[in-house]
């Protein structure tokens, strides 16, 4: 790089973004390692070593968050990939109602999570909700979607999928649409059917789209907070508490050191899971 172009493309351009990013994202992230080892009220702090971490891992009302968060992230991620792929394939084909279907699948993405949470909590009401009324109409008894500790987490996860599948669909759709027509022509000459088209062309060649969906959905699931908070506040009991909602509860309770320890655990967890996953997935990508 010449001196002239170094001057033209000066790093001064990075300064505004870099300053904001450093002050309000990087700096707090670095500080969190220290503050997670303190008892802290924003003004005074007392260094207590790993005590907060020990508390977080040993107390069952806190460590239940690990299990719940993993289940939530894996379930939402798998369902978004499966439904997103199916819808993507469907919406890439020449349907008369394609425009309508695309809009209707995508629009929940634009709604606020809180609004979606409120709407679905009322629809999932055990006796009055329209979901259980519909189930009763065919002679079955619907479960207490949000009140039963064994299924509440999955109920919230389903709503998350309802809201987020549009995004997954759009990404798959773009991946499938970018596959050159020649591949399909070659398949036709070789005499493959619709299923071959899906299995041997669409699936492998929309690989990078699938990777994007997996990464986005998985990280999104691990960081999830607002939908759970709007629908169950972590209850009943702690059955739907995610790490992010536990952090909020500790923050509300004034346990800032403990909340920050939760934060450090969350972002170490996200990094330890997401970075290797990203590396693993992108290594297997096929170029068109």
């Amino acid at each position, binding site marked *: 790089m010449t001196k002239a172009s170094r001057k033209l493309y*000066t790093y001064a351009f990075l300064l505004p973004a870099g300053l904001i990013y450093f002050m309000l994202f990087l700096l707090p992230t670095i500080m969190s390692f220290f503050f997670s080892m303190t008892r802290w009220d924003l003004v005074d702090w007392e260094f207590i070593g790993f005590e907060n971490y020990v508390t977080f891992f040993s107390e069952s009302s806190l460590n239940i968050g690990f299990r719940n968060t993993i289940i939530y992230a894996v379930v939402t991620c798998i369902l978004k990939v499966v439904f997103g792929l199916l819808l993507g394939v469907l919406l890439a084909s020449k349907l008369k109602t394609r425009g309508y279907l695309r809009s209707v699948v995508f629009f929940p993405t634009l709604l606020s999570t809180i609004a979606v949470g409120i709407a679905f909590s009322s629809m999932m009401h055990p006796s009055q909700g329209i979901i259980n009324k519909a189930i009763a109409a065919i002679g079955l008894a619907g479960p207490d979607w949000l009140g039963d500790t064994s299924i509440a987490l999955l109920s919230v996860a389903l709503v998350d999928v309802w809201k987020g599948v549009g995004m997954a669909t759009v990404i798959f759709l773009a991946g499938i649409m970018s596959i050159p027509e020649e591949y399909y022509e070659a398949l036709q000459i070789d005499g493959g059917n619709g299923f071959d088209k899906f299995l041997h062309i669409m699936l492998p060649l929309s690989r990078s789209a699938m990777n994007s969906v997996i990464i986005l959905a998985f990280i999104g699931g691990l960081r999830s907070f607002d939908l759970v908070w709007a629908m169950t506040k972590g209850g009943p009991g702690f059955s739907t508490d995610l790490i992010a909602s536990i952090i909020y509860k500790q923050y509300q309770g004034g346990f800032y050191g403990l909340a920050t320890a939760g934060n450090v655990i969350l972002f170490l967890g996200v990094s330890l899971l997401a970075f290797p996953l990203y590396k693993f997935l992108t290594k297997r990508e096929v170029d068109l």
Partner: protein
Amino acid sequence: MKKGVTKFIAESAAVLLSIVIFIIPLYFVLINSFKNRTESAELSLNWPTSFPIWDNYKEVLTAQDGLVLLAFFNSTVITFLSIIVLIIVCAMAGYVLQRRTDKWSSWINFLILAGLMIPPAIVPTIWVLDSIHLFKTMTGIVLIEVALSISFSTILYKGFMVTIPREIDEAAVVDGCGSFRMFFQMILPLLMPVTSTVIVLSAVGIYNDFVNPLYFFPGAKNATIQLTLYNFTSMYNTSWNLLFADVVLISIPPLLLFMIFNKKIVSGMTAGAVKG
């Protein structure tokens, strides 16, 4: 002919499913926001016997001295200011990061990628905001929204810069432009397609944001749309009609944006998501 029939049945099934899964919830919220209190308490899809639509919506808008209107105002200002700052700082950053590669590049790229994955450290961020006297202020929440969107928008800009030839920069330099003037006069206008993507995506994201205002913009006067809606769930726990009226009201801006930019959102989002 047989193939045509199968296709017709499959398409009808898809439309029917889409109505059950996506349209009915919408209809449910909308129709119940039109009912009176007793009828909405049934949480049913029945057609209302009376339509106190105006009363419901007026009551929501005037509740607590027009808190919803204040929230609309605050959320609009926050969204608007965040987007302006975001466009300027991320366009600048994306431009230089694409044009220049040296020993720092991979570090900077790593830091940007980290911002996409790692959740923000909540209480330390409050601590930083508080020590620069921006906690609970409009400026503070705007800077937070910007800081947490910088990674994504910078990646979008950096990706788009590839399509702008370097000859443009060089021609401008020959004409005697300084690097900043050159950027703002020549490059920024050329980035318009990706700028509109950033505008739409950030507008929806920041307007719908619940978590950041919850942590970094608390206080009675600092009402934002999503926080107000959340607080209404306990206030209106027996008046579903009013709660749903609020849900409908706050969903209007994103849906309008969607109708105007329908094609652009989908294409822009996919371009960013697949490349990023």
